[in-house]
């Protein structure tokens, strides 16, 4: 996923002189080529994420469309004031590229669990937030961002999943009945797809653009279902569950909205995301049990 996005940026730098790439000393064997090919449009700012965001704003003042890359927790949590004031207030077309989502860094502990970052960003007016669930969506994403010319955050999951092979912001895989809809994004979306393989009655809605939500498509996708279960590797209050509760209240949707997600930090070692999925009932078995199978 990450490689596809980086390749797309690198390729576009060759034809678009307004792209500037910055990183905060992250991305070994990945970012070097930017500096080698385009030294005048590349900077490793060092371990100084706040500086990277404000520098990006200065570059945007010069007409650049900067991409700023590091690990998701560092680029969001540490830099919220820079993102709000230097990007958001100015509506600068700066893209924050955050690698890792949820429990991608499972054994590294709670400072590296990315479970509460994009939800705080959605409070900034005019920002687009993406979490590509498949390489198909990731491949087209860079062009979409460049065309939109708005502030953006890309939450990049580890892995290179190929399903659902669609470049739509929302992809619905209907089940045999309209009873239960699982709504998810990023790596947990794969778990939902697995659950649907085991129980074809389940419907799944994969959301690639988390904010803003396409309300027309969303209303159509949610309406038939009695139970809507949001499965996410992010705190639900600020996450997609929160967005859907707000949406459902405004549109007077009647379905029952449920959440499967972490609600606090985890301090134990898990060698893989699956350890935490199981603990949270976010594995396929847990989802099947919850939905009555």
């Amino acid at each position, binding site marked *: 996923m990450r490689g596809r996005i980086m390749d797309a940026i690198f390729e576009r730098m060759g034809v678009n002189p307004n792209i500037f790439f910055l990183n905060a000393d992250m991305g070994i064997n990945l970012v070097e080529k930017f500096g080698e090919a385009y030294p005048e449009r590349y900077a490793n700012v*060092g371990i*100084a994420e706040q500086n990277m965001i404000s520098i990006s704003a*200065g570059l945007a003042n010069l007409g650049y469309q900067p991409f700023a890359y590091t690990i998701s927790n560092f680029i969001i949590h540490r830099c919220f004031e820079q993102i709000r*004031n230097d990007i958001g207030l100015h509506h600068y077309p700066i893209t924050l590229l955050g690698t890792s989502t949820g429990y991608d860094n499972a054994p590294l502990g709670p400072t590296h669990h990315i479970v509460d970052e994009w939800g705080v960003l959605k409070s900034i007016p005019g920002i687009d937030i993406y979490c590509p669930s498949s390489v198909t969506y990731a491949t087209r994403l860079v062009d979409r961002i460049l065309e939109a010319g708005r502030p953006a955050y890309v939450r990049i999951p580890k892995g290179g999943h190929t399903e659902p092979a669609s470049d739509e912001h929302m992809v619905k895989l209907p089940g045999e009945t309209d009873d239960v809809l699982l709504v998810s994004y990023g790596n947990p979306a794969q778990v939902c797809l697995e659950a649907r393989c085991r129980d074809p009655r389940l419907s799944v809605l994969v959301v690639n653009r988390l904010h803003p939500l396409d309300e027309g498509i969303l209303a159509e996708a949610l309406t038939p279902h009695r139970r809507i279960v949001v499965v996410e590797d992010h705190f639900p209050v600020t996450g997609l569950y929160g967005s859907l509760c707000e949406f459902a209240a405004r549109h007077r949707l009647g379905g029952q909205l449920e959440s499967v997600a972490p609600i606090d930090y985890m301090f134990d070692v898990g060698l893989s995301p699956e350890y935490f999925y199981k603990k949270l009932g976010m594995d396929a078995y847990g989802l099947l049990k919850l939905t009555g199978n």
Partner: protein
Amino acid sequence: MLHRARASHLGSNMSAIEILIAIYSSVDCGKIRDQVPDRSRILISKGHCAAATYAVMAHFGILPMSLLDTYHLDGSLLTGHVNHTVDGVEHSAGALGHGINVAVGCALGLRSRGYTKRPVFAMLGDGELQEGSIWEAMMFIAHMKLNNLITLVDNNRISSITGTEQIIDMRPLTARFEGFGLSAYEVDGHDVGTIMGAISRIREGDRPGVIICNTVKGRGVPFAEWQPIWHYRSLTDEQYAEAMAHLDQVEAA
């Protein structure tokens, strides 16, 4: 402006007047007014210095003088911290430790665009130097040899509630900046000619530079000078009359 609007930050604005005059005297203000892409960039990192900035911009023809009458009043864009929706203001500020970092991006961008000689100015407060992001900027400026970036510190030695030396003593300031690899000059911050001389030396030199401008918070208003409370207080009618009488006397002398 401050009196009419019952606005605060008198002290911080009065200390920076001559620094602002020196900066705007060093650039092509017509290019700033017309937003020409290769214009010099001026970043007001101590964003609460808005009244003085707008006044100096108007003096140099970037803003219409009549606009100043709306400062800090309902519906005006002239907010109490510099606001980029005002023509000629590059970037909104107000939270400290941002403007200098944005200036770094401007300097990098100008160099990348091939405008290597076009200067970028950033004006900081000395209290602001307590923000860690400032030093992230300094490390980067020196490492990248951003010689077109000139940092000016309004060293009025008072921040919010007391003297900066009582809060975090940063002396000797010039040595700290030099330790980060910049050339540092210490000047009388109320002497426009001296500040401009230091600007010229940095522009002719081969290192990025910082100018420590020693100033008096509340300069020109005797009862406000060196008094931290004038970061917050607004002038009564009597105090305004007294202040103006003193300034008229200074002008006449």
